[in-house]
């Protein structure tokens, strides 16, 4: 009914390959963007920004980076957290060495550092596959976090061993640091996420994306049709780590405000992996849906007992929280292994066909 595609004819290849072959998709995206850019800033409270909106965006971006690698190029990685850390520490060093530097430039540059490290740790993917590769990426995870702790130069020899975000101005407005307001940070993150998502969509549906998918589906066949496996895999590691690094820089600079090395440990990697898998591997939309679910769940679970007036102490809530998230992950995997993105695809299909069953 709402999704009537009848009458939308394509008369050229360009039109058929357009970003939005169906007009309603573009309209829907427009509505979402209006909500994100206008409605939320007008209505959301400080708490909503800090606890929900900003983390959802940043986690989506990190999951997007992982999804490029795992979902599109088929290389399982468990080291996302460490690559986020590389982005964050690189950004911190850039900002403290060149205080004049614009923060957008610093964040964009810091992505290249994590991309370089990502390619380095991606080299084993040329020899090993599957779970062996996944464990190999854990080497990056443990080694880098250890380095963040031991290499004092990275955190400017702070006694606390943590990095602190200074106040950073851009065009006269404070965007990062203790003085920044939540709404400016939200807009900043939102703009970065929109730009990168736009690029990611176009990379993954273009020549490079098709190359990655071919490697993912069957690498030998891909090699036989003339795809350079090495270039393709390393490029996936490069692009993925770049996006993940930027997400890491945003994670510390625009959200947490301070970070210690163990913030980037395994739990962060798994969290991002959950988002990518529950959202749906090999989909861009899925990252956002997954991030909304994973970030919102603890907040909701925390507030339910209060709403019903059941007194629970905070340790109990914490334990229940972990338990429920574990159970939900299993439940989601059983109900729909292809993730939330597939759910949406099914709903959309139903809308298009409605009121007919087939």
């Amino acid at each position: 009914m709402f999704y009537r595609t009848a009458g939308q004819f394509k008369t050229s290849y360009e039109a058929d390959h357009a970003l939005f072959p169906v007009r309603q998709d573009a309209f829907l995206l427009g509505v979402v963007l209006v909500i994100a850019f206008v409605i939320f800033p007008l209505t959301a409270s400080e708490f909503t920004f800090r606890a929900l909106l900003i983390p959802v965006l940043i986690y989506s971006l990190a999951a997007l980076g992982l999804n490029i690698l795992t979902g599109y190029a088929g290389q399982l990685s468990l080291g996302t957290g460490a690559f986020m850390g590389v982005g964050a520490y690189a950004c911190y060093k850039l900002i403290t060495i060149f205080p004049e530097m614009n923060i957008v430039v610093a964040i964009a540059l810091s992505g290249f550092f994590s991309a370089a490290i990502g390619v380095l740790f991606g080299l084993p993917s040329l020899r090993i596959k599957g779970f062996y590769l996944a464990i190999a990426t854990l080497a990056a995870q443990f080694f880098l976090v250890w380095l963040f702790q031991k290499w004092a130069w990275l955190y400017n020899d702070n006694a606390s061993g943590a990095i602190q975000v200074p106040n950073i101005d851009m065009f006269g407005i404070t965007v990062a640091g203790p003085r920044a307001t939540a709404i400016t940070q939200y807009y900043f993150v939102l703009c970065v996420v929109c730009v990168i998502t736009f690029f990611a969509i176009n990379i993954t549906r273009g020549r490079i994306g098709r190359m990655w998918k071919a490697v993912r589906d069957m690498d030998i066949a891909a090699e036989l049709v003339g795809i350079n496996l090495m270039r393709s895999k390393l490029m996936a590691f490069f692009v993925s780590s770049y996006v993940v690094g930027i997400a890491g820089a945003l994670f510390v600079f625009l959200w947490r405000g301070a970070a210690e090395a163990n913030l980037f440990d395994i739990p962060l990697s798994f969290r991002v992996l959950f988002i990518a898998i529950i959202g749906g591997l090999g989909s861009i939309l899925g990252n956002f849906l997954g991030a909304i679910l994973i970030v919102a769940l603890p907040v909701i679970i925390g507030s339910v007992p209060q709403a019903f007036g059941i007194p629970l102490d905070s340790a109990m809530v914490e334990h229940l929280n972990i338990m429920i998230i574990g159970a939900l992950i299993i439940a989601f995997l059983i109900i729909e292994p292809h993730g939330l993105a597939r759910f949406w695809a099914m709903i959309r299909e139903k809308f298009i066909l409605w009121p007919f069953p087939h």
Partner: protein
Amino acid sequence: MEFLNDILIKPFADMAAAPDFLLQVLWEGLVGGVLYALIALGFVLIYKSSRIFNFAQGIMVVFAALTLVGLYEKGVPALLALPLTLAVMLVLAMTIERVVLRPLVNQPDIILFMATIGITLFLIGFGELIFGGENKVMITEQLFIPTGSIVFEPFGGFVSIEEKDLTAVIGAMVLVAALLVFLNKSKIGRAIRALGDDHQAALSVGISLSTIWVIVWFIAGVIALATGIVWGARAGVSFALEVIAFKALPVLMLGGLESVMGAIIGGLAIGILEKLFEIYWGQPLLGGNTEAWFAYMLALLVLLFRPQGLFGEKIIERV
């Protein structure tokens, strides 16, 4: 030059200068290696029979140890608590098979892997809810594990071996031997290996997939309990133990995901080498705590030359 000296010569000079200390380090490494091998064995068993990369093995260790200690604290005698814990592990294996694995048959590997991470989170929350999050003391004496230490004096030096470590090494050896006999000689063991070779062929000759899975997960649970007792006796029982799952992963890389022998040899090698590296290279040169990543880097280097691990099945690709 001095740098090269620090890396290449001084550590070996140190070793030669204090052979008793070297022996002590080797022994500590060996005990650690036995534990890594045990955990890796749990992984290998489940991977062989079901192609599931069971991330929950680490938390099963904690859960088994916590159940044992928790039951004892509730007033159950130690020798009764042991079979009761085994019963709990059996129930756990059956529940996992019924609730998680059966609905996920035939899904891609990564989905099953994620499911075991889900199990891990669930068990962490569940365990903390029931037993509390604080560190507990393993009931070593109640289980008749000796706690003294034996002192040797080779080369005019001093080497101390804790009796509980010795018990652990012997116990692990017995367990592994029993397991190998079970896998190679018994009917069920043959069924497990058949499932590992070819699911469909095994099903078609009448091997029940779900029964074997329950058995395999139960055996993994028994290994987890043994690991939990040994490790708990050394470091106490708490959820911090969970990190040992990560110590077992490079062992799997090194030894190969399907190889029981690989898990054992890989575990011992990594245990000893990482201890040596930490004492003679890590602490003087790199600021210590290199155990966090040394095993991974070693495994990574080995994999670059042998992609299937030292003992893994050769990966043959067909087009």
